[in-house]
């Protein structure tokens, strides 16, 4: 592997890792703060991708689709939280598993009714369809750089919100001690709704920006969900920083695994997970 090729793989793994981070961050936040395990998190990713496809064919612009899709998915998240999830914060994990598994079935079938079972492609906007030349015969697509840029911007925004703003302070207080925070006058119900909608929004935006690269197809949600679980398990549940580091690690192992050891590529990430579990059963950054 020469240097340019290595660089391309490195960029790919960072881009994949950042995308996984957006998904895992939502999953781990929803768990860390509300104590809810959400198997339907992958379905929000799928929802995002299908929204991107529908809205970009409708409006002709991916930018419009992403903005509209983000708003729609956040509204959807708020509705879902109000209707179902808020009743499950104090229930057993088993009940949460069942609820969200039922939701997967509903989402998959509604998707099939609304959008059909075909694989769809989403076109990259002209502005982002160019490539950056690396050497004479190797170049890197601008769109993938754009994806990484969006992910980094959202990650920084998330970090800023949680660690620097008043809302973030309330979120942390609520996660640390719900009753104490409530008696201090923090509206925990509202905080939970916001965090849930944020998680849904992050997953849907990940699906939307990934749509042109990964295409849009049935069951795309469950595949991504498993990878999210691996990321969260390695990173340590509830830790956003752990999710970032472990998502980058998983991106690296998966991307380079496919190039260097194609016959074992599918297994490598799980072997990494097993190794981490042996060493630290609670994940690398358990809070």
């Amino acid at each position, binding site marked *: 592997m020469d240097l340019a090729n290595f660089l391309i793989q490195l960029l790919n793994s960072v881009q994949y890792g950042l995308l996984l981070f957006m998904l895992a961050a939502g999953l781990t936040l929803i768990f860390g703060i509300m104590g809810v395990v959400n198997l339907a998190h992958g379905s929000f990713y799928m929802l995002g991708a299908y929204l991107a496809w529908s809205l970009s064919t409708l409006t002709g612009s991916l930018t419009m689709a992403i903005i509209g899709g983000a708003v729609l998915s956040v509204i959807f998240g708020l509705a879902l939280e109000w209707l179902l999830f808020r*009743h499950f914060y104090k229930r057993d994990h088993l009940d949460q598993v069942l*609820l969200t*598994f039922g939701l*997967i079935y*509903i989402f998959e079938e*509604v998707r099939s009714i609304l959008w059909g079972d075909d694989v769809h492609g989403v076109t990259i906007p002209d502005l982002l369809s160019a490539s950056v030349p690396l050497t004479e015969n190797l170049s890197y697509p601008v769109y993938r750089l754009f994806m990484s840029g969006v992910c980094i911007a959202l990650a920084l925004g998330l970090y800023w919100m949680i660690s620097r703003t008043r809302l973030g302070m309330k979120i942390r207080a609520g996660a640390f001690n719900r009753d104490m925070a409530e008696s201090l006058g923090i509206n925990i119900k509202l905080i939970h709704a916001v965090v849930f909608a944020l998680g849904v929004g992050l997953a849907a935006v990940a699906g939307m920006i990934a749509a042109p690269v990964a295409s849009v197809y049935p069951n795309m949600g469950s595949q991504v969900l498993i990878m999210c*679980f691996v990321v969260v398990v390695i990173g340590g549940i509830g830790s956003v920083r752990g999710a970032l580091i472990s998502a980058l690690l998983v991106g690296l192992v998966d991307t380079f695994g496919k190039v260097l050891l194609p016959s074992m590529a599918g*297994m490598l990430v*799980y072997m990494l997970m097993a190794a981490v579990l042996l060493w630290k059963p609670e994940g690398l950054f358990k809070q």
Partner: protein
Amino acid sequence: MSSAKANLEILPRGVQVALALGLIALVAFPFVGTDFYTQMVTRMMIMAIFAMSLDLLQGVTGLVSLGHAAYFGLAGYALAFLTPAGEPVSLWWTLPVAVLASGLAALIIGFFVVRTHGIYFIMVTMAFAQMVFYLFFDNKALGGSDGLYVNFKPSAAIFGWVPFDLDSKVTLYYFTLGALLLVYAFLRRLLWSPFGRTLAGIRVNEHRMRAMGFGTFGYKLSAFTLAGALAGLAGYLWGTQTGYINPELMGFHMSAHAIMMVILGGMGNFAGAIVGAFAFEYLLHVFKDLPQVGSVNLGKHWQLWMGLFIVLLVVFAPRGILGLVEKFTQRKEKTEAGHE
């Protein structure tokens, strides 16, 4: 009762009578049912064994595995690999080998997953099961996404003498019923053994069990291995019945279905797992069989009905069918106690 989630470990007389009647119905069924329904009930019994094996983890030990289908599927694959295309192989060695293979896989994976707790355990079991799934799904040598055929049903011949023939649907039915009864009796016995009591203690308070000197890791790993092996028994029977094995059998939908069955019937007493498996398989059959209404084929969208059913169940009746029975009987006991 030891905890708020105390399980229905001693079955009320009414439930015992219902189970006995159910057994009589199962024994008599092939005489009245058609071929189609005999096969369907065979499948229900196989799923009941699978659900009971999960209940050992979920209901007794308090470990919710979202990857239990991996061990179910592995034994099916073991059967497919052990059966050459040309001739049937003996039941008497393929069955133990397949069950041991599943148990061994559960032992290895269990070594990693049993260190984790609660929600972590759910995620890790699911991730490892998906690893097994993709191992078979991605490798043409292991059958790939198309799966494998089990060309011949295992032969029960002993030195040329054939006590029964699994090619017959009715014989396979009774063979499965026998396996179901054995597994149920074994697990009920286990529940009241020191080992079973320790597992129940781990469910209620693992820290206290460890403080009392129990090596909980070893107990949990043993339970995980045993549950994997019993799931393997169900998978072997499935492969024998359908003659076909594919990666879907190890997928996470299958694992979630097993969890559903255990919840639907009621956890921790194995009878619930049986009732739940029958109810769940029957519901699947009903949903897939829904008629065409106008231009909409309701049966085609069975996943929607199943999803709605699961959500409604977990919102309104989280403890399942036997849970409702228990609620009723407990209330009666309470009022009786109040009168004393």
